[in-house]
């Protein structure tokens, strides 16, 4: 097996290109890879397609920093604060640059990842029938079920195959084998659909730890391109059993990013002027320590003995 540990700065520089479709947040409101979002902004990527069912303020931040040409997802905003100011500005006034919006619902983007992951050209769905998503997303086609004797509408949703997926996991080994627990949203489908996978691990453990419980492996190392040790990579989003949600930080973002100049000030302070995620954690200081989960609610061990 190949060791794949590298600093996040190097992983972002090595595996992302301008114009790529990048999954930043596949689990919905937890395990959002904010450390990767920040690094993409610092390295000044352009024309990205920000892909995520829901990614809280990650997409809004990337749009404000001028990194995004296209948004593919079901919900973009600030879960605590409501609307995302940068997303609104870009959609309503084309600032800092116009963006193309590819509308999906959560289930339809999930099934588009599923098709991308398992080699299906498209999936026929019923759950977006009657929605104007079919009209506003030109990639989705209204058709009919060829197996039905009566006229039965179905929506055809093409496979979605991102270039890179960033995923936050609780623990991984140096080969990229990763354990995730709690709800996972579309983590599995999005990662298998993606051309490249970059794992941001809260903790790096010995391979024996991961191997002791293969049912908890959502991402096996053989498909992973890089594994980066980034504690609290999802801040301000939570990571189950490790970090609580920083609701105050999200409200503050909402208050402090109303106008472009305000956003730029915020982005300088929290992203551009900091060299890396270590500095970000240091800046958060006690605020981050207060979010660390200290309690224990351990699962019962599972016996994998063969004889």
């Amino acid at each position, binding site marked *: 097996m190949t060791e794949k540990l590298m600093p996040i700065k190097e992983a972002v520089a090595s595996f992302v290109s301008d114009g790529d479709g990048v999954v930043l947040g596949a*689990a*919905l*409101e*937890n395990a959002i890879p904010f450390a990767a979002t920040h690094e993409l902004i610092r390295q000044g990527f352009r024309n990205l397609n920000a892909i995520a*069912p*829901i990614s809280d303020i990650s997409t809004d931040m990337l749009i404000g920093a001028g990194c995004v040409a296209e948004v593919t*997802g*079901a*919900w*973009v*905003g600030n*879960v*605590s604060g*409501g*609307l*995302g100011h940068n*997303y*609104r500005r870009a*959609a*309503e006034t084309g600032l800092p640059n116009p963006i193309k919006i590819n*509308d*999906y*619902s*959560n*289930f*339809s983007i*999930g*099934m588009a990842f*599923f098709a991308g992951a398992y080699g299906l050209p498209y999936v026929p*769905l*019923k*759950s*977006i*029938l*009657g*929605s*104007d*998503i079919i*009209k*506003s997303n030109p990639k989705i086609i209204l058709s009919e079920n060829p197996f039905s004797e009566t006229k*039965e*509408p*179905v929506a055809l949703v093409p496979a979605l195959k991102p270039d890179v997926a960033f995923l936050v996991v609780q623990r991984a080994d140096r080969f990229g084998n990763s354990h995730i*627990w*709690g*709800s*996972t*949203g*579309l983590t*599995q*489908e999005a990662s298998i659909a993606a051309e490249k996978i970059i794992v941001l691990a809260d903790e790096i453990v010995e391979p024996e730890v991961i191997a002791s419980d293969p049912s908890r492996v959502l991402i096996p190392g053989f498909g992973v391109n890089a594994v980066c040790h980034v504690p609290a990579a999802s801040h301000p*989003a*939570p990571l*189950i*059993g490790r970090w*609580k*949600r920083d*609701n105050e930080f999200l409200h503050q973002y909402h208050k402090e990013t109303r106008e472009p100049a305000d956003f730029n000030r915020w982005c300088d302070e929290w992203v551009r002027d900091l060299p890396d995620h270590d500095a970000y954690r240091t800046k958060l200081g006690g605020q981050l320590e207060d979010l660390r*989960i200290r309690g224990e*609610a351990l699962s019962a061990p599972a016996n994998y003995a063969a004889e």
Partner: protein
Amino acid sequence: MIIAAAREIKDSERIFVGMRLPITAYGVARLTHAPNAVGLFESGVARYEPADGMLYTMCDGPNQLDAAWTTGLIQVMGLLSGGRVHAGFIGGAEIDRFGNINTSYIGDTDNPTVKLPGSGGAPDIAAMAGRLIAIMNHQKRRLVERVSYITSPGFIDGGDSRKKAGLEGGGPAAVITDRAILRPHGPENALHLSSIHPGHTLEEIKENTGWDLRSAPDLSETPAPSKVEMDALHQIDKDGFWR
């Protein structure tokens, strides 16, 4: 409003819960008339008991601790798509006479006046749940004649247009507001005033609705919350956040 929403949940049903008011309504229902209801969350969570502790999102730790199932989105939303979910709650910026809900664009999609955050899983819930229960504040700018964009379909253009669009069942069963309950009525499936909450008047409700709201023949007053319901609400919403 929360008590009225809780009453829409029947015992032993599988419910797509959503955040904020609906999660409190689910908790009240479990403690009163629906002790065997199951709550589903699209991020990949199923729960029997409502979470203990304040939730900002369905992905927060308290909603995962002691869950019945933590899994992926496709597993839980697949239950919905497979017709195995009895009812779902959603909110929205705008709802119209036929129960269509907009959370996407105000104005033109290419050049919107307001870009709203978008759909999340609401279209899937509106299309595939056995019943849709919408919750929103009763204001003229929210209850409109026609939404500018259908994020989540109700009865679309009324009559059998939902069926023609390919959706066999489901559709809005109730729209619960802070003033009243609206339900579809008649062959057109337009929302009618079904029940007025105590302390509100027909005139006031009509004034705050963006279309010519008609009353259902069996228009009644919403029964006031019972002591049992209020006790349950206090137990669920300890800090009084939603009262």
